């Protein structure tokens, strides 16, 4: 089977029940998506599947033949951060950084769908993402800055 990851076609050899998260990290060496709870509850493994945010730990790769996957590596580069990445950087929206890729991906998807979401819509869209460093004030400020 094949999937497209950040625009590159990849032949996958992992068995079909392997979570997409493990395929990305262990077979393809793409490590932005993090293994937090491994049961869908923390949001750290979130990636885009055909443009929609999904938990890669809950997604069997065998169900994704032909899908287009986007990780943080696909939305910006260290030299050229995406709007969302730059806003998180400028607004101190990241501390240890473990949850950050999930927040970035979910925010990216939210702003693709709605350029100027309300505070309530941001909270709803990010409700599946947990930060255990410091809280959500700076994260919300970063998202609002990215949408400004």
């Amino acid at each position: 089977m094949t999937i497209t990851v950040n625009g590159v076609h990849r032949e996958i050899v992992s068995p079909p029940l392997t979570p997409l998260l493990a395929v990305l990290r262990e077979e393809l060496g793409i490590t932005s998506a993090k293994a937090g709870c491994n049961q869908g509850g923390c949001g750290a493994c979130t990636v885009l599947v055909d443009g929609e945010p999904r938990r890669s730990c809950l997604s069997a790769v065998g169900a994704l033949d032909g899908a287009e996957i986007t990780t943080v590596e696909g939305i910006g580069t260290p030299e050229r951060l995406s709007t969302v990445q730059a806003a998180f950087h400028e607004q101190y929206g990241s501390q240890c950084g473990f949850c950050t890729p999930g927040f970035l991906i979910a925010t990216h998807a939210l702003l693709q769908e709605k350029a100027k979401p309300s505070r309530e819509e941001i909270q709803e869209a990010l409700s599946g993402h947990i930060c255990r460093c410091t809280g959500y004030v700076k994260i919300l400020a970063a998202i609002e800055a990215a949408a400004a």
Partner: protein
Amino acid sequence: MYDVQVLTPRSPEEAAEAFGDGSDLTVLGGGTIVLPEIAHARAKPKRVLMLAHSGLDRIERANGTVTIGAAVRAVELLGGDEPLATAARYVGDPEVRAQATVGGNLCAAQGEAPRGDLQAPLVVLGARVRSTGKDGERTEAVEDFLAGGPQGRLVLDVSYDDVERRTGYAAFWRPHTHHDTILAVAAARANGELRIAATGVAPHAVLLDPDDPLAGIDPRDDALASAWYRKRILPKLVARALESVG
């Protein structure tokens, strides 16, 4: 990954045939329940039936009946018929709702924390479950399906009458503590008949007596709430759910 046979049917008929009598077989719908079990090696099914391309993901409204395929995702219920649409908002979070399926919600492991947010709304809608398994296909009231348990059955779809209803829904829920609804009550009045059901007072949703909602209710203590607490909250949720039903 251990040696496991993965079946990927391409139509509802193929899914039913591949399921057979369901022995030694685990159904993988959206993956939200089953995949972590496999990834953590808590479950080691010999055969897995993957519904991703089974064609069981359609919602149809025809001839006075609404039919929702087993692989329809919770997110697709948002904005649809109440009280199902409101209850769907309580399923996990946006990403989980984009994966979790109606069939999985009806078959969530019983005896653990209540995970079947969609069950009580389906009960008050008078929904019928069409499933296949050992003795072939059968259609039964959703409360009967829940009471019998999902073992050996593959849910194909659920359906209910497309009629005018007054509905209500009230849930007791805490954000970010866990992903389970502590207690929820759904209510619907159609053609003069009032139906009230609750999620969180038993391993699966149950129909309540409108005249005495606590009758026959015997909730258990679990990590979310004590039985004592649930019994005291239930009448309040019933009252709230009925506010919009009249």
